[in-house]
């Protein structure tokens, strides 16, 4: 084939393909997907695969996406992170020569449900013994209610070791202080209930709601107190001990989070979705490409050889075709120690995937074989390899392209299914695994729709992309179907 001919045929193919609206839509989706997959490390961060299996402490657990506030009557507080740059830290000396660092964070609260927790991360100091540890005091200044603006002491001069995580919501000392503050404000708390509150109190709910005379009302019918709150933090360190605020993170853990919410380990589902596209595309394309290539060569060779060799090859083909794939894959998954690595999965799916294509390729090759130019080539002394590769396989390439595209969704579904069963590659982030973890954590039963719907939609979207392209290619390249 000359270069000019190739260019011409490509051009005419493109002209035909362009007219298939669904095919063009599929192509657009494919470009978008490829872009997402390739840019995943840049739009998120490159250490995500490493971090994925850990708990993301800084995020809330099972939080719905932030935009649900637009559709819901109760507004939930979003996730806010304050870093060094947001803080204005002032430094002073007290009468004992200690250094006092202090800063304030104003927080505007206009929601119906407060944050889940306030957490301080990465407060570093060079104190080597617990004796030298700097002390922290935290208080929350509430907006005006009934003419008063009240300051709630949360922590008073608590020693804090370097790099400790301070979670205010579940801290017993904080709970004690909040209960005392409630009592001072004449809130009636029975002793048995006080004991129970110390263990299970949802501290933030009391801090961010109006004071009512009866604790039962505050528990069951909290009224949010809107306005500007100020979190006041003081860190006191002995002479010679220095405190480093450069990496500090103060996280107001939201009841909602980001674009797609979080799962039960606090992982950002949006990030998982982006990274999952890599595995999906890689598996789908690799499996479809390899199985179609093998299938076509196998089928064409079988048809060309003919006779007992053809018979033999066809018996092997039938044998592989008669094995039910998913049960065998499950079986092998168990044998491989409960997990099938990505490359193993590709090989296995190819091993079962080539048979259907080879059957069709053989029947097509049987027709091509009878053409006179094959006869001519043989008469001129061309070998089997040359005839198969040079004269027969190129005839089947159009069919191959369509089949590659149409084969991708099946491979993606297989990977997702195995991952869903817990047999997937644990070192990868895949949508099937996300769904598996959602199912294990009872997401569907608990109504955490943001953990269930997006990964499945993503699988469907990738599948649909290739089906659209495949059907369009089939129509353009396969003359048999043109009339339909």
């Amino acid at each position, binding site marked *: 084939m000359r270069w000019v001919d190739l260019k011409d045929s490509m051009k005419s193919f493109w002209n035909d393909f362009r007219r298939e609206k*669904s095919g063009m839509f599929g192509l657009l989706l494919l470009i978008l997907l490829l872009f997402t997959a390739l840019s995943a490390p840049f739009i998120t961060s490159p250490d995500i695969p490493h971090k994925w299996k850990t708990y993301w402490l800084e995020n809330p657990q099972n939080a719905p996406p932030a935009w649900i506030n637009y559709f819901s009557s109760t507004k939930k507080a979003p996730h806010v992170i304050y870093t060094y740059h947001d803080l204005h830290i002032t430094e002073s000396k007290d009468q004992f020569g200690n250094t006092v660092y202090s800063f304030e964070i104003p927080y505007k609260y206009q929601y119906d449900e407060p944050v889940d927790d306030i957490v301080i991360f990465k407060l570093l100091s060079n104190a080597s013994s617990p004796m030298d540890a700097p002390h922290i005091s935290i208080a929350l200044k509430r907006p005006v209610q009934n003419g008063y603006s009240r300051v709630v002491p949360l922590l008073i001069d608590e020693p804090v070791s370097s790099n400790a995580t301070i979670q205010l919501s579940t801290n017993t000392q904080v709970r004690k202080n909040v209960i005392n503050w409630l009592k001072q404000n004449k809130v009636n708390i029975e002793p048995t209930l006080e004991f129970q509150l110390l263990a299970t109190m949802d501290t933030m709910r009391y801090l961010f709601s109006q004071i009512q005379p009866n604790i039962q009302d505050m528990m069951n019918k909290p009224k949010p107190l809107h306005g500007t709150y100020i979190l006041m933090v003081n860190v006191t360190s002995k002479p010679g001990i220095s405190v480093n605020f450069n990496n500090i993170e103060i996280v107001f853990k939201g009841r909602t989070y980001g674009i797609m919410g979080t799962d039960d380990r606090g992982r950002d589902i949006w990030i998982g979705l982006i990274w999952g596209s890599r595995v999906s595309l890689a598996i789908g394309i690799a499996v479809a490409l390899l199985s179609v290539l093998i299938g076509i060569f196998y089928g064409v060779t079988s048809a060309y050889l003919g006779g007992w060799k053809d*018979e033999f090859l*066809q*018996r092997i083909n*039938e*044998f592989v075709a*008669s*094995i*039910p794939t*998913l*049960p*065998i894959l*499950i*079986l*092998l998954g*168990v*044998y491989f120690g*409960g997990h099938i690595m990505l490359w193993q999965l590709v090989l296995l799916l190819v091993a079962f995937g080539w048979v259907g294509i080879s059957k069709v390729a053989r029947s097509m090759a049987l027709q091509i074989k009878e053409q006179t130019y094959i006869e001519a080539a043989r008469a001129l002394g061309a070998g089997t390899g040359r005839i198969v590769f040079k004269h027969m396989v190129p005839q089947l390439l159009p069919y191959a392209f369509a089949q590659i595209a149409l084969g991708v*969704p099946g491979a*993606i*579904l297989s990977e*997702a*299914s195995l991952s*869903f*069963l*817990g*047999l997937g590659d644990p070192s990868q982030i895949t949508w099937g695994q996300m*769904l598996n973890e*959602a*199912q294990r954590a009872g*997401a*569907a*039963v*608990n*109504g955490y*729709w943001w953990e*269930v*719907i997006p*990964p*499945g939609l993503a*699988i*469907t*979207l*990738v*599948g*649909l992309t*290739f*089906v*659209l392209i495949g*059907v369009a290619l089939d129509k353009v390249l396969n003359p048999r179907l043109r*009339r*339909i």
Partner: protein
Amino acid sequence: MGFGRYLAYRLFNAALILFFVVLLTSILFVKLADVTLQSQIQETVQAEWNAYAQHHPGSNVNQSEFIKKRMEYWINYYGLNKPYRTRVWQTTIKTLKFDFGQTRQTIFGTRDASEIIKIALPRTILLFTTAQIIVILIGILLGVKSAQKPGSTVDRTISVLAMITASLPMWWFGMVMILIFAFKLSWFPVNSFPDPTLTGLAHIKDVMWRMVLPVITIVTVLFGGWAWTTRNIMIGTMQEDFIMAARAKGVPERKVIYGHALRAAAPPIVTMTIFGLLGSLGGAIITEAVFNWPGMGRLYWIALQQNETTLIVGLTYIFTLLYLTAMILADLAYAFLDPRVKVGASASM
């Protein structure tokens, strides 16, 4: 080749495949069982020694000797002293005879793996056969409808539906259905496991009620593909000369479609039906797990989570058997309905 010989050939072929699958399974799992059995034996013997030492204080039995003797006993008991080849062969024969051995934990009230599968299989058949019949009816009806007017709104809608559902994971769709109809709207029970306290008519009603959601899921995911395939087969048939002739003769259009075209298109549709009826059992493994429907798929899920290898081997065997049966039946039905295939098959022999 006559029909009898063709049948014999297909049966022989299927038996051979079944044998090889079981052999492969045995090769894999005898090796896997070795590892688990060895550690199990070590634990048992250690426990035995501890019990012995407690009950016979001051006994002069040597510990290492005691352990060695008991180890030998258990290794002999489990047949681990026999060569690998012999054990693979024994496992193969046992599996072929439906003797899958015992599970470690009780499932559905028994530890006999064959017994457990016997309980689960009818439940799976009940769910998927019901769903599949509905799918076939809707699929063929819609397929014929859209083949009548290619390019119409009905036709295009069906094409789009078929494309979307082909890429939809059925089990994920099931999760979404649970989320919407069981959780948010509470129209249907979240859990498909039947209420064990009910009997008689109440039990049947309970089971049917729990089947609604899984059946809707399966039908929704599968009917598009069926309609699409039927449509393509029908369009091919509608362009044949005999349809043209029937129309020219003045045969009413209804009769042309249902009497002539559909009958001519029957062989591939019947094949698909048989495959659908028997073959779909394998394809919906995970959907059952999602709905907690106590059938074969749910068993796979349990077996995977509890690492019950005997059950996995048994399930795989039954699935292979069902799958091969479907293949043979479909092949035979095709050959029976369309004599050209039989000729083609014998010509290539």
